[in-house]
């Protein structure tokens, strides 16, 4: 297990460096004067001189790459042009929302997808199976932004006045604010320390923050705001997972050891639960990593639809504002997160399936 983990880690490191090189090349491909691009059109000659010195624009390209890499590894993405604040600080405020959205969507997609897949496989070729598979086919074909808008219309407008009404945008209702858990617990924090940044990061996940401080009104409000975005975002991965679970379980249910289990006279529920399901879940775990990529991409669109202040919307707004430091910071952070998540998925996969380790 350890050997496999080390090998897998060694594959991830060149990919991470590759990502840094790609983003570096992209940043250098921005047309026009790099100083004007990174500091804004109003940058003076003196600040540009300092900028050139700082990032080594008068040095060979390899030196520039070295400076870039050491900056990124220290989490320094420069200052946002639009907000005139460090990109890292903005990411700390915005990223937790996206993580919360993607994680909740992943949980919903996995639970619902696996359940539907099991039902479809157990009742193979029944009406339930056919309906689920037609639904899954339609589910993977829907544009996430369209689904989001339609949900916002149905639940936010047509159901207005009924108990089913759900807020179509924002994270919290007006008048409700989330109080960071460290303030609730009266912790004294040194400003600007890495530790306080970390706490701030976690407190910006409103649902998590409300949960650990037992603030039920805020919790309920945040959950209600998150429901529609999560459903919109979870639909595509849910369909993919349902299809995968079904085909994998059907495959396993046809194996000899399942026949043996049935021949022993086990109840069908026990056959599925104890003998088939564990093995059928392995391919599902592999696609979870891929689905996270889809979730992070989809989060960009979902946040735009529901007016949520996450990194996805930040990125899109930054493109129109030509706020290159933000674009770079968001791209690098999401890509690194994606690689790390895939690493974790692969490691858990090898933990679940010993055959992988021995390859």
């Amino acid at each position: 297990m350890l050997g496999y983990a080390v090998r897998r880690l060694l594959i991830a490191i060149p990919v991470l460096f590759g990502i840094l090189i790609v983003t570096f090349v992209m940043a250098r491909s921005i047309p026009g004067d790099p100083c004007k691009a990174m500091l804004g059109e109003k940058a003076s000659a003196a600040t540009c001189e300092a900028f050139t010195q700082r990032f080594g624009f008068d040095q060979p390209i390899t030196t520039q790459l070295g400076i870039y890499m050491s900056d990124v590894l220290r989490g320094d993405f420069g200052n946002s042009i639009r907000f005139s604040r460090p990109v890292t600080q903005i990411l700390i405020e915005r990223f937790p929302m996206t993580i919360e959205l993607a994680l909740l969507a992943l949980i919903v997609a996995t639970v619902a997808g696996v359940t539907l897949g099991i039902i479809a496989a157990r009742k193979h070729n029944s009406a339930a199976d056919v309906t689920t598979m037609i639904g899954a086919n339609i589910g993977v074909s829907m544009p996430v932004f369209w689904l989001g808008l339609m949900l916002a219309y149905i639940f936010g407008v047509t159901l207005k006045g009924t108990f089913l009404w759900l807020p179509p945008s924002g994270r919290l209702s007006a008048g409700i604010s989330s109080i960071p858990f460290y303030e609730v617990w009266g912790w004294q924090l040194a400003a600007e320390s890495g530790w306080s940044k970390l706490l701030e990061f976690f407190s910006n996940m409103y649902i998590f923050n409300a949960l650990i401080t037992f603030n039920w009104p805020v919790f309920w409000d945040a959950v209600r705001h998150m429901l529609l975005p999560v459903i919109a975002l979870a639909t595509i991965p849910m369909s993919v997972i349902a299809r995968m679970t079904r085909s994998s379980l059907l495959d396993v249910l046809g194996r000899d050891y399942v026949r043996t289990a049935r021949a022993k006279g086990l109840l069908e529920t026990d056959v599925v639960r104890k003998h088939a399901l564990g093995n059928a879940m392995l391919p599902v775990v592999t696609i979870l990593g891929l689905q996270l990529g889809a979730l992070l991409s989809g989060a960009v669109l979902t946040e735009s639809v529901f007016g949520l202040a996450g990194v996805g919307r930040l990125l899109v707004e930054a493109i129109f504002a030509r706020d290159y430091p933000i674009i770079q910071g968001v791209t690098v952070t999401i890509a690194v997160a994606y690689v790390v998540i895939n690493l974790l998925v692969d490691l858990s996969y090898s933990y679940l399936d010993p055959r992988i380790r021995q390859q």
Partner: protein
Amino acid sequence: MSALSRASAQYSTKIDNEGLLGDPKPMWRQAISRLLGIRSGQIGLVIILVLLFIAAFADLIAPYNPQQVLIGVEQVKKREAPCVHILGCDVSKPQHLMGIDGNVRDEFSRVLHGTRVSLTIGLTTVSAALIFGVFFGAISGYFGGWVDMIIMRLMDVILGFPSLLLAIAIVAVLGPGIQNALLAISIVTLPQYARVTRASVLSVKELDFVAASKVMGASHRHILFFRVLPNAMTPIVVLATLGIATAILDAAGLSFLGLGAQPPMPEWGTMLGSERNQIFSAPHLVFFPGIAIMITVLGFNLLGDGLRDALDPRLNHS
């Protein structure tokens, strides 16, 4: 009829069905006949044929010019709801199946013309990704060694990004617009084709007929492009069909964000994106382009699934 001759007759029809005896059909015809026997393939093919028909004859089918502003032409208001005569709309009013858009144009005509745009987007991005992906994948798989190493590590890096995110970042550098969006989508989907081609080439190049070609003194180029690649195409064809679906979805997403096709081009994602703030007052302007995207994507997904079953039963995953 004796039992023996009946059995042999059964045997020969069984073999004939598999196309092994008698008049041998070309492989692609076998594949098509098998595809037509698969439900998802049938539905997908019908959807795509209808869409191709609409795209080809959009000018004739569409009741209006997609760019024509109807102010002064008809008594219609901006973002007016659909008016369908058989559904009880007043016959004295002009018929607009999908209503009127924000610039007082016929939404139905725009959605019809959007078919042309979306199919073009799907086909061009996939063709570009396919040509370069297959080329790099084939070289990688056939030659191996450091060529393989370099190409595949590069592909790993591209796959290290969530695809739409990398596409957005590329558009951010190149600038918004349909061409840059298509280029970005081609780049981010290229590694899939390279990987699948490489795997396919790796298995085909070990086969005997490749060795025979080598013994006869054929050049590497000849072996790779005329012997190995044609026999390695099966999984690539399936992937490309499914890839058209993803490309259309991603392009619509970029256009929705304002990074792809720009108005007044009748692109579904753009149409949807420019009216998204009117969802509460004019939901039809969001509903219909979205349905159009969904049907198109569904068509290619179903065809891809059908092709997978028809071309290679071993790959059957759904």
